């Protein structure tokens, strides 16, 4: 057996380290809030449903072009070969379009779920997936409240496919392709702060044209992809009951209790063990 006492202490040590890092959790979101995230504003009131963004996205990321038709009432979904999609909805104000893509949450559930940090909230704001780290557990898919990450089930080397806000292009100083390709200026790229200001301005200047809400300002703790719409968002098939605080918040309580249990439990157990030792002696006598 290679495990001696020292080896055992080492294992304990590792457990201790994992505990210590666990504490860093506290600091992280705060730090990140100070940097300015980039995001996108999508305006359903301007979108004409031309699907230029879909095509541009597929071409830029070497994905096949979609063949299914855009029709009000049918739900086209993003999948492992399609990162973004435009759908049409028959609403109280006629046919309105909506773009589906990753929301690039401020505090993403997917990244908090990921045990390899493959899902990662960059300082720029884009949430990206890194194949060299991902082990394909799909916990990000379980956790994302918008069901955005998609998995290649029919591949021996499967990838997680989702919008990365064209992070590579951003690093080169360019905008996401969908923003660039939009002929109707329904998509704007900028810092989240500017975008919220711009969205407010639009609502304020054209109150009859907009439903008075910016989807993503507070949803899921705030998202980088923000949306405006002429109609209430449930008419566009969005989940409006989504919680306003971030999703990682939900498991924080559990994670924070871990170090405490790790310190208290062994002490308690050892205490009981010592206290009941006498029983053992007695029982043995009786035998």
């Amino acid at each position, binding site marked *: 057996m290679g495990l001696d006492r020292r080896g055992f202490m080492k294992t304990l040590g590792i457990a201790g380290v994992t505990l210590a890092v666990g504490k860093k959790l506290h600091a992280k979101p705060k730090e990140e809030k100070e940097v300015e995230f980039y995001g996108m504003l999508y305006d359903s009131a301007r979108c004409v449903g031309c699907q230029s963004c879909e095509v541009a996205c597929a071409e830029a990321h070497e994905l096949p072009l979609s063949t299914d038709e855009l029709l009000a009432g049918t739900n086209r979904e993003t999948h492992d070969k399609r990162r973004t999609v435009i759908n049409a909805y028959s609403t109280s104000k006629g046919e309105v379009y909506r773009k589906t893509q990753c929301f690039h949450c401020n505090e993403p559930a997917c990244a908090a779920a990921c045990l*390899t940090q493959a899902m990662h909230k960059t300082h720029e704001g884009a949430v990206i997936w890194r194949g060299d780290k991902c082990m394909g557990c799909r916990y990000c898919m379980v956790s994302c*409240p918008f069901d955005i990450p998609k998995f290649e089930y029919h591949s021996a080397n499967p990838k997680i496919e989702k919008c990365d806000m064209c992070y590579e292009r951003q690093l080169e100083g360019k905008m996401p392709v969908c923003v660039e390709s939009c002929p109707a200026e329904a998509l704007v790229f900028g810092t989240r702060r500017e975008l919220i200001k711009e969205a407010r301005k639009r609502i304020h200047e054209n109150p009859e044209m907009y439903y008075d809400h910016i989807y993503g300002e507070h949803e899921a703790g705030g998202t980088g992809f923000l949306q405006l719409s002429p109609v209430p968002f449930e008419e566009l098939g969005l989940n409006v009951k989504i919680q306003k605080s971030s999703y990682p918040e939900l498991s924080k309580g559990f994670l924070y209790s871990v170090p405490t249990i790790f310190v208290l439990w062994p002490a308690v157990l050892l205490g009981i063990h010592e206290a009941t030792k006498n029983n053992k002696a007695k029982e043995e006598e009786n035998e």
Partner: protein
Amino acid sequence: MSNTEYTLQSKSDGQTTWQFLLSELKPKGKWLTPFNIISIPIMLLGLGLIVLRFWKGLGAVTNLTQDVPWGIWIGFDVVTGVAFAGGAYVLTFMVYILNMQKYHSIVRITVLNGFLAYVFYAGALLLDLGRPWNVINPIIGNNFGTSSVLFLVAWHFLLYMIAQLIEFSPTIAEWLGARRARKILSGMTIAAVIFGITLSTLHQSGLGALYLMAKDKIHPLWYSEFIPVMFFVSSIFAGLSMVIFEGSISHKVFSDQISEKNHHAQNGILIGLSKICAGTMFAYFFLQMLVFIHGQHWDLLNTPMGYWYLLEMIGFVLLPMVLFFIAYRKNSVLLIRIAAIVTMLGIILNRLNVSVIGFKWDAAIRYVPTWMEIVVTLAVIFTEIWIFRWVVNRLPVLRESPSWVKKEK
């Protein structure tokens, strides 16, 4: 340690250690038992399916969808399997921490069962990983996703397996006749037990905490912020029911190995365990009721999912709880076994309700496992039983320790 290589006891007929190990590898007893006839083809088929899965991708053998990314390989093999393996930490708690010596004779078999369950069911996690070669990242510390509950759970699985191996190691030393090693290893038992119980507390609840972020996806009757507590409390009686179930079977199958004294002790043990089960189930039921009232979901009861929930709570928690209680009062071993089986079904139901059945219960396309997923699951279980049987037939698990152990005490 330079002198780890203790000279192993030379066997009476002068075999070397290698010859001894090789001879132990050979099967003992009859080959064509009904169990073998059923399990061998399933294991071979399962192996084939696993090859197919790695060759063509998960989609080739599973029915997983983009909406339901975790199927029975996680929901049953890992989440349910680990709950059943909880018996090991509960029993070591009773025997080593509370010093309830009555249960000592079943510690070894329970720890062995727990250890193998972790190796195989947590190991089943690897089958489910799309990119298993990167599993090394969170282990060697390339990337510590410390904010991830799954990270915690995975690490705890790993550490707990080591702790269980240490708990079990004196048995291995006895088998090999390694006297000094046995002494050192037994000295580590208490530390391993304490460490193991702590880890178990955290990862049994951690398995529930995995689902905390899936707030909008799990049916509200099963989702609450208390899932971790529920998973932990239920793992106590899940594990003990497994101990009762497995114990009753081993008792028959391996009866030649059990000493006269332990044969007689068996009933007393079962009755003691049923009392503990009844108690913890009562606490669990009470907690469930509190959560239900707190959640204010009265309206949901009168829906199909509501009936399903009531069935679980009444038929598979309340009923077996009462059965355990009556069995304890009447000293009825048969009733204890029935109660244990109903409890186990209830645990399967509960874990699947959270992880599979209640997960995206409103999705347009429901996930239903393929026959292939079920075969692979069965193959994993059968392989575990094979190894279990192999070990019990050779190591002093149920059998008394060799005579030199007593002398050295």
